[in-house]
């Protein structure tokens, strides 16, 4: 095994070992603190391996692959497991492990109030998550990627439902599971179609154009679920029921980005299917605009960030749809940093004021200056203010979209850029500026365990954009920041959005169309549509199936069982217990066999 492969294996296996240890040694887990130590140590090892791996690679180096056969049928290997190290997976590994480590350290302080058992369970889930995510990132083929994909889904379910005693959290966990599983069926079917048509699970497979379109559309269905694209996005806002650090790691920075990562990985496949690209372009643009609108009227700080995540994932998907894998991947990276930063800063605020509601905050900049600065950097970066990370990646996406599909997605995303600046400005004004609310008056900054990760994440959130060119060279793409009309428009709109937010909300006013948006939000049209689909079509179908199962299948089963038991009793009849009867049977059998031998 070569050194890069070994490092990748370490990055995957360290958290796996921690997770296994915490599962197998319940006594250790229930202690709480040792679980956190094990988990964080594993993440450190993972990060170390990822950094060594990423720094040890020179740009443009060919991919390193180490696989072992997994499923074998005769002499043919159906699937392999292993590691695939190239620029993309190395960069992604660094992002994932870095954010995970920050979040886990932050969690030590944030979850301090938990009972010991819960504390240990929390970190056991985290270790499971990091293992699964890394497994996904280094996957050499789509099958292993899917295994990791399902495992991160499981970790997400467990962590959203961490406060499972709370009905809303349990419901949210089930909802997230249900929606993403529904979408994952697409991947499953897609993989089967891919395998049947090409005999492999490689993303470099080249099926017929029609098959490629079908496969990529099916894969994209899974992406829509995992990356919360309209109309499958409804689980993400509800997922905010989980602890805030979890939202930062899974539901902002890494897991939801797995969908984008899949498309980046399977880019050779997606390039064969221009139709899928168009679908992605539109889905991404619509999601971005729609979610940004809803983000504007949320009163819960985490929900704002959740819709913002949907919206930003929409940008990435649109970029991928336009055929620019690098733009999507670049934005994935910068977004992971500043969105994790925003969530952790929000977590710091929530920890201080014990509420998610923006109305309960206000004026926090004096009480929590460091958090305010960190959150501010996140806001500016997300808004796309020139010079900060989000500016570069977002503008690259907008530039890539120029002229696509009659400029409509471009215009939608440009509008979204303004809306993004506006709603993030609103959050900042409501939470940090103005007069403090009753609760916010007693807020104070938490210890280094919480502020440290904020500082660590604030740095890349601010400056990561300048490394775009380096990243492009690293993953084998090309990128040259250029300052044409689009970036000029976008940054003007971003600044205008922030100024407008300060002007409107700084004076305690409300925009005119907020009511309309609020009605839209309350109506929850998409949620309702799903509910209707579920309660009418699905429940009806399962009712029918249930009836069929109960009366026809079970009836047949019971009849078979009854007949079999009767036959069993019949067999008993010959079992007389008398030796002479048994001997008779032996003789009869021997005679019959001989007769057959002679007569045949």
């Amino acid at each position, binding site marked *: 095994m070569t050194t890069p492969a070994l490092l990748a294996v370490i990055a995957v296996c360290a958290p796996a070992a921690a997770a296994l240890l915490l599962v197998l040694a319940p006594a250790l887990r229930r202690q709480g603190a040792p679980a956190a130590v094990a988990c964080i140590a594993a993440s450190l090892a993972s990060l170390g391996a990822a950094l060594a791996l990423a720094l040890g690679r020179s740009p443009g180096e060919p991919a390193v692959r180490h696989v072992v056969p997994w499923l074998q049928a005769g002499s043919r290997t159906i699937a392999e497991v292993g590691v695939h190290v190239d620029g993309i997976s190395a960069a992604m590994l660094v992002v994932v492990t870095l954010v995970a480590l920050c979040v886990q350290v932050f969690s030590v302080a944030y979850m301090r109030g938990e009972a010991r058992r819960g504390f240990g369970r929390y970190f056991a889930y985290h270790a499971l998550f990091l293992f699964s995510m890394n497994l996904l990132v280094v996957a050499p083929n789509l099958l292993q990627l899917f295994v990791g994909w399902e495992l991160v889904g499981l970790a997400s379910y467990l962590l959203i439902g961490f406060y499972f005693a709370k009905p809303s959290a349990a419901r949210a966990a089930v909802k997230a599971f249900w929606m993403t599983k529904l979408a994952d069926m697409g991947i499953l079917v897609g993989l089967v179609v891919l395998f049947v048509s090409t005999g492999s699970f490689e993303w470099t497979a080249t099926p017929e154009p029609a098959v490629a379109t079908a496969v990529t559309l099916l894969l994209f269905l899974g992406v829509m679920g995992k990356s919360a694209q309209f109309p499958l996005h409804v689980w993400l806002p509800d997922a905010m029921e989980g602890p805030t650090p979890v939202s930062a790691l899974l539901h902002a920075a890494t897991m939801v980005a797995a969908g984008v990562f899949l498309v980046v990985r399977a880019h050779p496949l997606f390039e064969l299917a221009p139709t899928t690209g168009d679908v992605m372009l539109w889905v991404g643009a619509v999601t971005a605009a729609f979610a940004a609108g809803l983000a504007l009227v949320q009163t819960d700080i985490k929900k704002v960030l959740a819709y913002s995540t949907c919206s930003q994932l929409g940008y990435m998907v649109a970029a991928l749809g336009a055929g620019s894998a690098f733009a999507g991947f670049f934005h994935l990276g910068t977004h992971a940093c500043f969105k994790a930063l925003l969530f952790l800063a929000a977590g710091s605020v929530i920890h201080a004021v014990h509420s998610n509601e923006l109305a309960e905050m206000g004026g926090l900049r004096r009480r929590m200056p460091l958090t305010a600065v960190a959150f501010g950097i996140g806001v500016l970066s997300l808004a796309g203010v020139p010079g900060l990370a989000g500016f570069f990646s977002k503008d690259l996406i907008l530039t890539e979209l120029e002229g696509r599909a009659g400029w409509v997605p471009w215009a939608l995303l440009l509008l979204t850029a303004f809306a993004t600046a506006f709603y993030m400005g609103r959050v900042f004004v409501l939470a940090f500026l103005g007069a403090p609310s009753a609760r916010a008056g007693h807020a104070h900054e938490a210890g280094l365990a919480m502020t440290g990760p904020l500082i660590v994440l604030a740095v890349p959130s601010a400056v990561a954009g300048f490394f775009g060119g380096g990243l492009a060279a690293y993953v084998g793409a090309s990128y040259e920041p250029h300052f044409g009309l689009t970036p000029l428009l976008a940054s003007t709109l971003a600044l205008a959005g922030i100024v407008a937010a300060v002007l409107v909300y700084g004076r305690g006013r409300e925009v005119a169309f907020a009511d309309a948006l609020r009605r839209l939000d309350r109506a929850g049209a998409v949620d309702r549509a799903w509910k209707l689909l579920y309660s009418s079509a699905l429940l009806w179908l399962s009712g029918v199936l249930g009836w069929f199962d109960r009366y026809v299948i079970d009836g047949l089963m019971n009849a078979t069982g009854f007949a079999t038991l009767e036959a069993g009793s019949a067999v008993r009849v010959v079992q007389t*217990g008398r030796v002479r009867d048994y*001997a008779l049977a032996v003789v009869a059998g021997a005679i019959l066999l001989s007769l057959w*031998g002679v007569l045949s």
Partner: protein
Amino acid sequence: MNPDIAQRILSQATLDASGPFLALALGVLVLVFLELLPALAALRQIVFLGSLAAAAWAATRTLFGPEIAAFEGTYVANSTTSWWALLFVASALIAWIFGRRYYRDEARFEGEHDILLLTAASGMVLMAGSRDLLVFFVGLETLSVPLYALSGFRRARRESVEAGLKYFVLGAFAAAIYLMGAALLYAGTGTIALAGFQERSELLETPLALTGLALIAASLFFKISVFPFHLWVPDVYQGAPSPVTTFMATGTKAAAFAFLLPLSFALPPESAGLVAAIALITMAAGNLGALVQTDMKRLLAYSGVAHAGTMLLALAGMHADPESGGASQAVLFYMAAYTFTAGGAFGLLTMLETQGGRPVTIDGLRGLARQRPGVAAALALFMLSLGGIPATGGFLGKYLVFSVAVRADMIAAAVVGVLISVVALGYYLRIIVAMYMQPEDATRPVPAESRPLSSAMALACAAMVLVLGVLPGWFLANVR
């Protein structure tokens, strides 16, 4: 004696080939000698285990080498026979370990018990390696006679004596049928060597030879308990002492199969359909019979009949298409999985019976999971393996057998076989349900003593079942 003959017989090749048998036979002789000197009784266990270990060691020496023929070709040692020998050693070891402290009234005859067990094991080794009808018969009797005695070993119990007597009468009957068959075969072909049959295959088509073959098959079918020769099985298995049942269920069946496989080339290819039909009927009879049992030993006896039927299906597949191969491997693997599964299951029943002081019934297992989680988990694993649930050795054995049938184009037989196997889950799962989902049997006595050796053996059996099911690669690569 002519020194020339002596040299031919006592060559290095002969010693290598008959090593396992010699080790066991020597062990028997030493044990008999020890019986005469009560002062040395303490050495008994050491000699017994040493003899088994020596046999296993001798078997591994021929495990990967070429075939060695001895005694004028009437006895051979090759990879397959060495695997069989290892399996017999394992079977004897399992029976012996679980049999510790089982015999209370007969404790002072334990020396005899060990001698009989070891003699029977040596007979099995002889059967597996024989390539001659008479050598095989010697092996068969060396196995059977001690087993008759062992079945009736608990002479104070009526059931045990009855089982011994039944087994003896019917076994003698089967032996007579075998000899009759051998005589007819000799009359028809003029030889009793397997190699001779191969040379004069045209003579095998004569009615005389065919009748002889049919009679020999009938007696072997009796040993592996195939319909309609299986009727003795439930009575004898239930009545015999539990450790002996363990040995009979695993070892005897294996030994008969070990000879049936090399012999089966002599059967005409047209007989494949008949053998398949017998296999399916046996599976059905075994599974249906097991379905209505309440006594655990009797239930496992019927289940053993069904398993014999399943293995016979691989034999049928081999007949239909001799080129396809894999039947020997399938049966060997199946038998290995079955030895550890059934050996572990019977062993645990022996343990429960010893501790509870009465036969184990399904009702008696209720709520066992709460009282003795380890025993219940192991027993559940064995039941799942017997039922052929994936990740256990039993599953892979079934898979191999059915794929032999499929490769031989006996797809209908394979499908029916799989369907019949499903029936079996009905009673295997019933046992798991009783242990895990039903309220405890309040009258069950709490075990007074722990049985570390038996527990370790059960654990080892469970581990083997899982290893064969999860990591079969090495075995499949080396077992042919």
